[in-house]
């Protein structure tokens, strides 16, 4: 999904890549994902959720 053409509806702002804090299985880490520059709302595209994120989730479950 091309996130360049995605907007936060409430803020009417295009998304920018921002470092975001994630937590899973008791571990915290940060990663750059598309967010609203104004309200900070995070957008997770399907390719990320079902791709790299799923891989990392599995790795953390195995730890």
């Amino acid at each position, binding site marked *: *999904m*091309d996130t360049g*053409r*995605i*907007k*936060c*509806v*409430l803020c009417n702002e295009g*998304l920018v890549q*921002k*470092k*975001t*804090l*994630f*937590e*899973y*299985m*008791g*571990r915290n880490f*940060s990663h750059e*994902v598309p*967010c*609203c520059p104004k309200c*900070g*709302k*995070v*957008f*997770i595209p*399907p390719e990320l*959720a*079902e791709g790299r*994120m*799923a891989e*990392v*989730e*599995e790795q953390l*479950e*195995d*730890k």
Partner: protein
Amino acid sequence: MRQSDTMAIVESCFHGQPASCTHNCPFGLDIRALMDKAANGKWSAAYKAFRNAVIFPAIASRLCPAPCKSNCQRADIGDEPIDLPLIEQAIIEYAKKKTAEKYVIPPKEQSAAIIGAGASGLACALALAQKKYQVTVYEKSEGWGGELREHRDFGIFDEDIGLQLSAVNIAWQFGHEVKSIDELAGFDVVYLATGKSGDDFGLLSSHDQTLYTTASAKIFLGGGLSGAALMDAIAMGTAAAGRIEAFLQTGKADAAVTERRDCSRHVEHEGVENAPRIKPESGGSYTEDEARQEAVRCMQCDCAACMASCDMMDSFRKKPKKIATEVYADTQASSTFSTRSLTRETYSCNMCSHCKSVCPEGINIGELFAMSRRNRVETGVAPFALHDYWLREMDFHTNVAAFAAAPNEKCEYIFYPGCQLGAYNPAHVLKTYEHLKSRLDCGIYVGCCGAPAFWAGDYERLNANVDYIRKSAEALGNPVFIFACATCETMFSEYLPELKRTSLYELLADSGGLKPGSALTDAAVFDPCSARGDDGMMGAVRRLASAAGVRLEELPERNRCCGYGGLVQGGNPGMFKKVADSRAKMSDKLYIAYCANCREVLLSSGKDCVHILDIALGLPQSMEVPAISERRRNSSFVKTELMRELEDEVFKIKPQPWDGLALVIEKGLAEDIDRKLISEDDMKEVIWNAESSGEKFFDEADESFVACLSRRVLTYWVKYRVLPDGVFEVCGAYYHRMSFSGAGE
């Protein structure tokens, strides 16, 4: 959890122990490992292993009566046993490196006298001299060998003895007959091995057959003198050296006694081809190639029944004892410093007890994974997201959709259909109950047995549910529970053993009053794993199908898990699919299932499958799998109908603000989303939340909205379009398990 708890489960596993041929070997030689080396032409390595066990390879290879042959499992499939003596001789002949065993350790001051230079005395002397004790051998004749000196092959034996003794220092006193044991008073210990009918110095009657000790504290006795045959005498000499060393170091000989494990068990050899014994073309000894071919005949007998027939164990290649060790080790792992090594296996086990059914010792590896799952939940380190969907299902079926009632408050019988029977087809519950009620004083209890909690390792939830069922049963007069689901029945037998139980299918098959009917001509019954051992239930299902005129074919195996067991779909979707697809391919015939979950899994794998109740009750046979939300609606419908009938009340499910949303989803996409275990209700909630709060994203590329909602341990995302008439078209749905806490700077 203690390590002894996990190890106790696999204690009797004999995988990796020597094979049955070793059981009879005087030396405890690991023949299977030796044959592996020989089969690969590793002659020098084979020689070393053989020499270390038998001490004098030339003597053992020519004079051992080979009791191993009588326990060679080739005979189990009608073949001649492996010709070990000829292979042993080939090992000696073709090994390029033949040297004596050499120990690089400092000499010891303690001294040992050996009386008798026969095979047993020599073996004892060699072992003690290797450990650098000061050894003196007294022999009345002029050389070593004892009774072997008379053998026609003594030249070969003499050379072998010389080779094996070439790396040690021993003081030889040939031609010296010890007349009185007092002569040896200066030695710290004595080994008396004067051979068959040799002088025992009055000590034979006090000989301890295990410790080889005698009435005289420092005199040990063994070999032919104690009645041992030649090979036993050699083995005894080596063992005596061990006991002597323990005595010299600790004052007690028993410190060296180790019990040999019983390795006499034979294993299954299904599918192994017969192979005739290789006969040496020369008539005497094997060529190198012949020896290898004969060693290849060794079946490397080892029990691997569980690993060979369980998809999960075959995939992870971990042995039972390793699994038991790791189940415990994982409880000690600290995520900061170490990694748990068994997580994926733990959540990939179907817990179907198939391993137990094929294990000669009846070991259930699933018990280990159940322990592991429970421990992870109790210590808060379980990947809770893996079982979230099914625990939500359990919550729904134990709360919203649960219902228990009887026509007259209390009842003699109660029908317990399980949570999924009505979800897949309300008629299965309602029509069955109608029939039962017409013949018995029968109530109905729609609920969940707690299997999802058991599979998740959530015992708090499981026990709460068990307590609730117990109280409900009591209120109904503790009736006999009639089970349509074998898993429910198994759970009740484990956690509510005090309640009386029977299977629905036995009642239906035996009670009469039914007119089973089906257009089917041929089919195969797919027995669920949870019905294993329940011949009554399995037989009744077959009787019901036969009564409807269905010709039945037996599957190659009964009670193989369809893939649903243990709820592995969340933790290992690939394994789930592999198992399900494999079960679907067990036969070309249409399946008759009697577990609602088996049927759903098999249908989803593209296998035509009907429920036995379709046949028993003459219902229309559909191959459709209802979607998740439809299943919930079906369960609510069942409760609505039962409440109206038994309590004359209207079931009102608590309305949700998103109930009224109208969704359209393309069929293929809907199936895809359903496979991800995302329900239509979940999607409605996400959309309703986004539409009412405005918190959503707009994708200009396709003019769609994307919104998310975090629930418990999962975050759901839905991509949708708003159609002109207020209908929402779902374009996609996905989820992730990680949580995020907003963007930083």
